[in-house]
């Protein structure tokens, strides 16, 4: 029982950064922009988040540092890919390379330092319930925030007019422009939201997951977040399922190695990606028409004036 609870807690902790980063990228991609720089924005968010928390002693300030850092990184992307209409794939890849270098620079002085990690909720009685108590009522603030975030994004996209306009920009930017919507401004906001989320997801790692910073600590989570958005076929509900599934696979793989299961660890590490490919194939077979991806995804838009 103890082991099951421990595994569930570990899965939640491993899934949360994936969920936060993927939620941001989902909004970005729904507006028609493909930002492949999630990994870069996350790692800068991790370095700045740790720096903020170490300097002030506050986890909240650290999280804000992460959010601001991610947003600034995304503004670099917005300037290039939206303002100057540069190829989005190239810009996103460059952003990741920039982010990895930048985070090493920012974080160099903090390697080896420790902070007190984010506190976990404790409600006497409720948190003490065996098995589910700690899972439901004993998480850190990031976990609860990530759930609220994805619910909020769902509500925004499908229940508000602003969300409808954002989806419209992602489906057909020429039409959206013809109807008088400021496509580039809307996309810039979507990119910034994606950057803020990626920065927060990155900051989660040194602030809650492990209480120290090491260079390259995002370890490809940004790429998994990108794959998750595709896996979820750009729908918030499926994104939650996907994030926890990917988190579970990551944790199970560690335990499987511990139990001495005779499957190479590399194969287990590749499982999330294999799952993405399989789901994509199933989705494209199941749907008879229409497209699952935002139709304008990754295309450059230059308004005529």
């Amino acid at each position, binding site marked *: 029982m103890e082991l099951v609870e421990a595994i569930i807690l570990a899965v939640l902790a491993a899934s949360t950064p994936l969920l936060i980063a993927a939620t941001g990228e989902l909004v970005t991609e729904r507006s028609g922009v493909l930002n492949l720089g999630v990994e870069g924005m996350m790692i800068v968010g991790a370095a700045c988040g740790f720096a903020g928390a170490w300097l002030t002693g506050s986890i909240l300030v650290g999280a804000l540092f992460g959010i601001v850092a991610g947003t600034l990184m995304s503004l670099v992307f917005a300037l290039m890919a939206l303002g100057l209409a540069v190829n989005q794939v190239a810009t996103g890849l460059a952003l990741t390379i920039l982010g990895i270098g930048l985070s090493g620079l920012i974080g160099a002085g903090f390697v080896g330092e420790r902070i007190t990690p984010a506190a976990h909720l404790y409600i006497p009685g409720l948190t003490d319930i065996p098995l589910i108590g700690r899972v439901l009522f004993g998480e850190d603030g990031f976990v609860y925030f990530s759930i609220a975030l994805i619910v909020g994004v769902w509500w925004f996209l499908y229940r508000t*007019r602003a969300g*409808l*306009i954002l*989806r*419209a920009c992602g*489906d*057909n930017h*020429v*039409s*959206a422009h*013809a*109807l*008088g*919507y400021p496509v580039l401004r809307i996309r810039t906001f979507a990119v910034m939201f994606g950057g803020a989320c990626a920065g927060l997801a990155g900051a989660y790692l040194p602030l809650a997951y492990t209480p120290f910073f090491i260079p390259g600590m995002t370890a490809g989570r940004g790429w998994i977040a990108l794959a998750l958005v595709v896996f979820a076929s750009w729908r918030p509900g499926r994104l939650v399922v996907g994030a926890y599934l990917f988190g579970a696979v990551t944790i199970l793989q560690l335990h499987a190695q511990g139990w001495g299961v005779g499957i190479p660890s590399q194969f287990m590490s590749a499982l999330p990606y294999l799952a993405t490919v399989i789901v994509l194939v199933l989705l494209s077979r199941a*749907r008879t*028409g*229409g*497209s699952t991806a*935002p*139709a304008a995804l990754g295309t450059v838009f230059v308004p*005529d*004036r």
Partner: protein
Amino acid sequence: MQAHQRMLDPTPNGLHSGESPLLQTLGLTKRYGDFLANDSIDIDIWPKEIHALLGENGAGKSTLVKAIYGLIQPSAGEIRWQGARIVLSGPSEARSRGIGMVFQHFSLFDNLTVAENVALGLDGRESFKDMSARLEQVSKTYGLPLDPKREVWQLSVGERQRIEIVRALMQDPKFLILDEPTAVLTPQEADQLFIVLERLKAEGRAILYISHKLEEVKRLCDTATILRGGKKVETCNPRLETAASLARMMVGGEIKEVKAPAGRQTTVPRLVVNDLSLAPSEAHGVRLEHISFELKGGEILGIAGVAGNGQDELFAALSGERLSRDPGTVVIEGIAAGHLSITQRRKLGAAFVPEERLGHGTAPRMRLSENALLTGHAASGMVRRGFIDTAATLKTVDRATETFDVRKAKRDPEAASLSGGNLQKFIVGREILRNPAVLVVSQPTWGVDAGAAAVIRQALLDLATAGAAVLVTSQDLDELAEIADRIAVMFHGRLSAPLATSEATREKLGLLMGGSSLEPKEAAHAVGA
């Protein structure tokens, strides 16, 4: 103020005494660099008027309506709305003043529902629920049925246009702009649209109607303004003009008439299609179903149909852009070619002219000589031992230029720098100069000026006279009537049996284009149901 204004702008036919125009442009000018897209245009639009805006491609019609709808800012001149000068900050301001627009290339979102699409065209002051209710009411009132919950990609072109019109009507516009609304409709659908427009006019609204189709303009419109080269040529009453006189004003001269050369004889079958079926290659594609026809040398077969009924898919299957499992489905010059690549089919004597000029027919940023090489490398001696014979490619460009009167600034410019008509003449010329046995051409004169269109149609007729088999896909029924010997209609991926052009009336073609069958048995069944 009003009296003063009327003195400045006398109405052309004195019909509107005692009112002021709903919308006026005074000296409206739009400059793009050195290019004057609109040069000092004056136009008056009155309530209860259907006003035609005529002109060839590039005459400045789109620029003018974009300025009136607030999409672009004029470089000089002014727009007056109900007598007062206005400066539009954008389309939403135009809409809030009562100016609506239905675009030629629909501004719809394929993966959103009908109701969501309509909501995006409104200012969003009412709740989604109220809007949906009003949508149903407006579509019922005007006889434009729509299902608000369906996603746009599932709808036909006619239905898509209905969304645009309903969306515009829901803002209760005083003035509605329609950009080539009938270009994508069957004749019957167009008739239904005219009923709606007449009704809007009777309600006191004004309509600006952009079209190429002169007979339609004569039938529907009260006034016509003709643009040429960015300037206003004339404002007249189209009912007092002939189609020929309107065309002369648009073109600025006589248009050469296309003549079918005498002594055309059909010979052996050169292109045969046997029971061709093909699954769609993309999400919104059409499935080709059991297409069969036979095309002899010396013959022109026309394929009519509303866009998006499988014409693109058929072109891809004939050209070899998509291969068939069964080689016998496409037979070129007696050789089963369904499994052969584009180059192999070209070697058999086939040539292809796709609909899209830039990006499909030519590589836009490559020179004409390089573009000549791209389709001619296999069979026209432009490559020797793996090396390009530059002189030969340039010679091809020169020959095409001379034979088909291609006008360009340099000897060998980039494809994208040519106007649509000149580039199309070059592409058709490039293929015809290869002396093809079979020519498959899609929308040969789409968006091409009348002069170039005449040259291209004549070239196709001459090619058939020389013994080639020519397959022309077009949405322009007048064009097919002019050059084709037989006309078949494509609908939902199926091809009707070809009719002799003399028997193919607009009514018959229209029925086929709308999916009805001409066979009496099925017609009776339909009535019974």
